[in-house]
């Protein structure tokens, strides 16, 4: 796993072995036995908690982990860049924009502004970590790349040729990370973005921007309806955490479950453009399972305190340990993840009626309800 500090597993080998054997049952027995492998831990969510932001949300998990996200939009002057024709056009970000077949700056782009990656800034703060520690950096970059890949958000930040919105998304974990906080942070960010509003623009074209001071007139950052009046399906991405234990796949693991995982996968997904159901993948990252750092159990046969004989040399110990097939002795997992398992996870996440769809729907329901 990314960070070495919170990943530090402090469970005894006997506990690890116990957890592993319960999670590898079919169906797996989870730590909270009322939950199935696809179930998320129950949580408490609310939005619009910070009045001085454009959008905010707070989600608390039952283990006490709590995240707070504030989205703040500020008007910023766009950078000017001389074009080859000597005409001034907005500099264009290159990359993920699929729909723009031709972006070499020859065509007029006044009609539709294009956003830049730099207009969105995500910072993640976790108590007990420095800003440049591995965990916050990793979380921030995963959140950023999912957000940038998932749609036209950055294009909506375009005001006119001279100005744009700069979106600052500040993610705060209010408690020390008791479990791997990625999914929690992404859900909170999702909710904050979903409920974020930008003041309505009153000025036209390339004038200095002037905004309506009526908050009721503000436009949502993620409009519910597109220009044609149809429902807009563009929503912020969410990231789902899944672990594999043997052939079982378990979603939203708690700390103890994470500790015995063979592999951990974070899947970022956004609602699919094409249909109202299902989702599409915008990013995948593996996370190092903390089990790699756990101590292997000393089997009774090798422990002088339990009537066994301690091996005389490390070479000997190695042979005995490798031959160990007795169940109930914890051995840290080795190697990686089978590709078939990854595709199983992704299809469970983004398939029809998959986990992503349900989570997005549940978060949507908060705003509606």
């Amino acid at each position: 796993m990314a960070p070495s500090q919170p990943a530090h597993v402090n469970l005894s080998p006997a506990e690890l072995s116990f957890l592993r054997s319960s999670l590898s049952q079919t169906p797996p027995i989870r730590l909270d036995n009322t939950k199935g492998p696809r179930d998320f831990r129950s949580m408490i969510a609310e939005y619009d908690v910070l009045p001085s932001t454009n959008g905010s949300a707070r989600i608390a998990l039952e283990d006490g982990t709590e995240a707070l996200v504030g989205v703040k939009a500020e008007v910023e002057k766009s950078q000017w860049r001389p074009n080859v024709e000597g005409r001034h056009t907005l500099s264009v970000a290159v990359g993920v924009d699929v729909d723009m077949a031709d972006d070499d700056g020859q065509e007029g782009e006044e009609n539709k502004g294009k956003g830049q990656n730099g207009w969105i800034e995500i910072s993640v703060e976790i108590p007990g970590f420095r800003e440049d520690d591995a965990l916050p950096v990793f979380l921030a970059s995963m959140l950023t790349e999912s957000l940038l890949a998932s749609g036209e958000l950055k294009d909506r930040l375009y005001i006119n040729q001279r100005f744009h919105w700069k979106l600052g998304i500040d993610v705060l974990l209010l408690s020390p990370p008791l479990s791997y906080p990625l999914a929690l942070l992404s859900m909170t960010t999702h909710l904050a973005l979903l409920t974020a509003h930008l003041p309505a623009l009153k000025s036209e074209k390339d004038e200095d921007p002037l905004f309506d001071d009526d908050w009721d007139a503000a436009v949502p950052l993620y409009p519910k309806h597109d220009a044609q009046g149809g429902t807009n399906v563009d929503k912020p991405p969410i990231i789902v955490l899944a672990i594999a234990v043997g052939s079982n796949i378990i979603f939203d693991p708690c700390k103890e479950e994470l500790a015995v995982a063979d592999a951990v996968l974070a899947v970022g997904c956004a609602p699919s453009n094409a249909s109202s159901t299902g989702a599409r993948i915008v990013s995948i990252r593996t996370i190092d399972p903390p089990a790699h750092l756990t101590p292997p159990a000393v089997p009774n046969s090798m422990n002088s305190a339990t009537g066994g004989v301690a091996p005389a040399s490390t070479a000997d110990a190695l042979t005995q340990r490798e031959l160990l097939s007795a169940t109930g002795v914890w051995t840290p997992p080795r190697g990686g993840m089978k590709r078939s398992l990854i595709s199983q996870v992704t299809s469970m996440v983004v398939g029809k009626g998959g986990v992503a769809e349900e989570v997005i729907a549940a978060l949507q329901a908060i705003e509606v309800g």
Partner: protein
Amino acid sequence: MPITIRAPNLPTPHDALARAASPSDSEMSDDDLPSGTSGTSIVTPGETITSDPQWMRGHGTYIPPSTTTIVSTVAGHLHKTNKLLSVQALRARYTPEIGDLVVGRIVSVGTKKWSVDIAAPMLASLPLSAINLPGGILRRRTAVDELNIRTFFSEGDLLVAEVQSLHQDNTASLHTRSLKYGKLRNGMFTSLSGAGGGVLSRRGGVVRSKRQTFTLNTAAGEIDVVLGVNGYIFISAHATSPSNAAATAEDKDISITRLDEAVSETLYSSQNDEITPGVLREITRVSTLIKGLAAAGRRVDEDVIVRVYEGAVELEAEEKSLGITDKGVGAVGVVQAVLERLELGG
């Protein structure tokens, strides 16, 4: 529905306090309530409890110099024992007391002792001289034991022990010199206090009682529950008693120390026995229920656990027969459902 999201519940202070305070209320008669408590037995830091000099100050209180007023220093329930006034904090770390049965986790291994986390503000210590050494009869420790200290307990290992003594600075010294203490395995650990206390567990904890360890009979088999006074709980598959283990072991030489040997062979094992899936499931069920109890603000003791466990099994069986497969209600949901039924039933 794999995901349950609830709106934050606004605190209902009056209701919550009344319920939480009820056990201690009964022992305090209204007529001699000291002044300044405004009807409830909850006091906050700085609140004057009484200025009557007849009362003596106890834990959680303080008398400002040159006055006779007793002032609370913590937020919690007011307790009165004869003329002694003490305030028990609503939420506090565990303070060890001699004789407490605690569940602890090894934090570090020293040359002659282990440091153990027992949820107290300071780590407890377990000297090498305070454990049962393997090899039968209680023997003196040797230099070899010191070198092999890690074979007994190493970092992360769980153990059940008794608080043997307290030092000046309130650090506890533990011992495991009894066959009922020692390393824990074949089960899982649950914590009701410490860092795990989140939004859902503001109250609750383990009740100090006569019996901290008990065996629960389930359909799948027997389950041992160790309720550490410190809020650490270990639930495991029932260990076959030492005599059985010795009988099953095909030992040829029958000696007096045989029983001890059989014990010592598994005393420091960190290898689990074979546990049937049924037992695994029941162990996690008990652990979930205990967490749910804590989250629902109930104090946890043997009686409550047994009752809630039986209720939950019954509830599940009924739901199954009715064809309800209501997964994902969460620990608190189940516990609350069971408690409601129990209260309805009497």
